[in-house]
């Protein structure tokens, strides 16, 4: 008797790579590196998330205090595409300065993200909602300066379309305010953003950025047709960040597959899954 070894390959239909700002990734989940209690937890969570793109912030060097550990000692810059943000900028001018500083840092490190920026021009410290005028000004200036602008936006489809027209490589509408954990508060607006941004340009990448609280929020954003989701706090501040990172990875994949599979229409009344024909009992109304 001959035993033939068989190899079982698990195929996950629909989970094809996607391209954004000239680079192709398998994972559609982008994660932040902020707010972790320690770097080993961050490293384990990034690994578990399956993400290939991670966001970072640009901040002053601590010159006179003990510098302590550096993020860069704990981030495998050969593994991840580093996406520097302009978080904390409340004017187009500051955001452009920070973007250039971030690009300079990544140039020094030889990281693939070097011309990328996650542009945030904020309008208000309490809500961290974007300033639409400043966002547009900064997008134009950075695009002219050779940046690939991945732009944080509100979920207003008109603003989103203007940002795309200004040359952004991706528009990233917020599900809800940054760090709020409220999920996708206005799914209709996300759908309108997707329609506006993908009209005649179906591969234009749209990332839902901000507001995620739980894995179901990621699935929901992906089911609406987003190309990806960017999150930070929902993993970093979960009680078990590494387990949550696993959940987020699977939720992103599940949401993508659910979207591609074509969901059923919602109906007011029930539709039986088992046939009435042949049922042996009394059926009301028959």
């Amino acid at each position: 008797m001959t035993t033939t070894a068989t190899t079982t390959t698990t195929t996950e239909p629909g989970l094809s790579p996607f391209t954004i700002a000239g680079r192709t990734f398998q994972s559609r989940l982008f994660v932040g590196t902020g707010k972790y209690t320690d770097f080993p937890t961050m490293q384990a969570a990034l690994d578990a998330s399956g993400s290939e793109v991670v966001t970072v912030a640009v901040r002053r060097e601590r010159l006179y205090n003990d510098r302590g550990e550096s993020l860069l000692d704990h981030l495998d810059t050969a593994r991840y595409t580093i996406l520097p943000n302009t978080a904390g900028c409340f004017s187009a001018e500051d955001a452009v300065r920070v973007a250039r500083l971030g690009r300079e840092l990544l140039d020094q490190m030889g990281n693939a993200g070097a011309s990328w920026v996650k542009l945030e021009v904020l309008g208000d410290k309490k809500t961290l909602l974007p300033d639409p005028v400043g966002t547009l000004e900064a997008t134009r200036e950075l695009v002219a300066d050779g940046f690939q602008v991945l732009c944080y936006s509100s979920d207003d489809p008109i603003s989103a379309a203007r940002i795309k027209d200004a040359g952004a490589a991706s528009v990233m509408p917020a599900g809800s305010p940054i760090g709020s954990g409220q999920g996708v508060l206005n799914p209709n607006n996300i759908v309108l953003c997707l329609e506006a941004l993908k009209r005649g340009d179906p591969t234009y990448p749209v990332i839902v950025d901000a507001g995620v609280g739980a894995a179901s929020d990621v699935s929901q954003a992906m089911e609406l047709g987003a190309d990806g989701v960017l999150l930070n706090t929902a993993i970093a501040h979960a009680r078990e960040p590494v387990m949550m990172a696993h959940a987020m990875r699977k939720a992103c994949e599940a949401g993508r597959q659910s979207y591609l599979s074509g969901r059923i229409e919602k109906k007011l009344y029930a539709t039986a899954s088992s046939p009435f024909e042949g049922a042996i009992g009394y059926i009301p109304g028959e």
Partner: protein
Amino acid sequence: MDITVNAKPHSLSEGTTLADLIRELGLADAPCAAEVNQTLVPKRRHEQHPLSEGDVVELVTLVGGG
């Protein structure tokens, strides 16, 4: 001469370059981007960039963020 580095006053001897300042602060081997008076100075030009009285220098790095 007196300059400002990351919003704090800093005294330097005349003729100090941006590269000298970065070395003095122990940042020569760290990824560190520099702005002088709100204009980026790429690393390849640090040695040739003399600092002047009243200059406002920003020295930044990458930290955790979302």
